[in-house]
């Protein structure tokens, strides 16, 4: 039974692995036995992320890509294949969240979110598919967002690019690739305390509001999300594909007024 959640022998590329959710995902996958290619924007960050895991006796290698740069995106999966001497999985964690009222989103803001949240995610999935489909096995997990299903102020473009688009991309890849034994799933986190959301959590009033609105009474931890990613990548989820697993402490099913 325990082996169902083992990733021994797996070789997984994790984007955004230098901090927050990505770091937690990389750590948990490596602890489950995977070799992890830790991708980050700079070699210093990627090397630090990989070194952290290697220092814990785990298998990790650094790979570098600025996901806003199409050429670097195209080179990332081949680099991971080479660095790990193989490739069986991809976890897209990296994302850009620019909070702007919809009427104030500049073309540069728009492009930044489209390039990283949607284009890079798609390009990396397709590059992964080109390796995994001929192998006849493998798994992709995309981190999306509750904004796939809900509207939140100042997150219109983020929701469209990271939420809705990626969730639908994941579902379509799942159907297209299933006959080749390659699965695609998504994890949609709620409010998780990470460097990206630290500003919100650091404010007592905002944090208090999260705690009142989230039925489980707390914000999420990166490991809460990482556990869901591990499950979806592992043999335990062999028959799960096209699914979006929401990890939100019950937030999205609560209509509570938070009193």
């Amino acid at each position, binding site marked *: 039974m325990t082996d169902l959640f083992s990733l021994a022998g797996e070789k997984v590329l994790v984007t955004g692995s230098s901090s927050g959710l990505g770091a937690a995902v990389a750590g948990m996958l490596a602890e489950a036995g995977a070799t992890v290619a830790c991708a980050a924007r700079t070699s210093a960050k990627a090397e630090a992320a990989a070194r952290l895991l290697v220092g814990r006796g785990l298998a990790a290698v650094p790979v570098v890509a600025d996901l806003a740069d199409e050429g670097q995106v195209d080179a990332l999966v081949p680099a991971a294949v080479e660095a790990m001497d193989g490739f069986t999985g991809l976890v897209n964690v990296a994302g850009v969240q620019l909070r702007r009222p919809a009427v104030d989103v500049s073309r540069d803001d728009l492009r930044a979110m489209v390039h990283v949240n949607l284009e890079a995610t798609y390009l990396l999935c397709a590059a992964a598919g080109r390796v995994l489909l001929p192998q006849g096995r493998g798994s992709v997990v995309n981190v999306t967002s509750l904004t796939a299903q809900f509207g939140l102020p100042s997150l219109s473009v983020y929701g469209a690019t990271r939420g809705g688009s990626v969730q639908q991309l994941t579902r379509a890849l799942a159907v297209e690739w*299933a*006959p080749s034994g390659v699965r695609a799933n998504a994890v949609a986190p709620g409010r998780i305390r990470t460097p990206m959301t630290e500003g919100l959590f650091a404010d007592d009033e905002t944090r208090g509001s999260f705690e009142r609105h989230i039925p489980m009474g707390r914000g999420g931890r990166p490991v809460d999300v990482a556990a869901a990613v591990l499950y979806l990548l592992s043999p335990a989820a062999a028959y799960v594909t096209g699914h979006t697993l929401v990890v*939100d402490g019950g937030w999205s099913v609560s209509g509570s007024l938070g009193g």
Partner: protein
Amino acid sequence: MADPGRGPVVVTGAGSGIGRAVAEAFARQGATVVALARSTDATGELAAQHDSVVSLSMDVTVEDSVVDVAAQVTRDHGAPSALVTCAAAGAAAGPTESLSLSAWRDALECDLTGTFLSNREFGRPMLKAGYGRIVNMTSFHTVATYPQRAAYVAAKSGVEGLVKGLAVEWGGRGVTVNAVAPGPIRTPRTQFFLDSDPANEAGMIGRTPAGRIGELPDVVAAVSFLAGPDAAWISGQVLVVDGGWTSNAWWGQHPFRP
């Protein structure tokens, strides 16, 4: 992924199919398993095979039965760490325009009311202990269904409503409540359907992107994840285990199937 330091794992409908597979899997992990079914014929066999399995008779449609068994289990083994509800009535299949009220009530009584009673009675000691994992078995029929399954779909959709209600109500007290919605899984009940016409299996496989019918371990693994300590912040969710069926709107044979 069971939590060995905590109380027993309670499984309803443990006499056959998914419930039996769940009970066996947790027993193999070394957890204390309370295997519940109306008849102890099959659960008694499980108990004979595994020292850590306790077999008791319980009818989820009888309030006194659920109340008494939950009290006995909590007294003898402590507050449950996990509850997995697999007890289900027959599929109540047939044309809905001639579905009898009693067939409708049988489906609702067992699948929905029985799940409510089980959640209420085994949930209460979990709330008192400040920890619990509830996994209710529903079905991919709540996402996309067949003709002539109206009562079954209504009951299972009701369970998913219960899941949301309890997740919101109990989340702040350490108890998560989720559902696992299996697609076509090879169980004694579906085997009957598959055996009745060879076209049924071909049709199911053709409709499923993964190209195979699900097996019991596929469902057990999802339950094991949601019932384990790592799924700490997942509540109110329906985890669909269907080989991609409900993501797929293609008709007939998959165009990329080798």
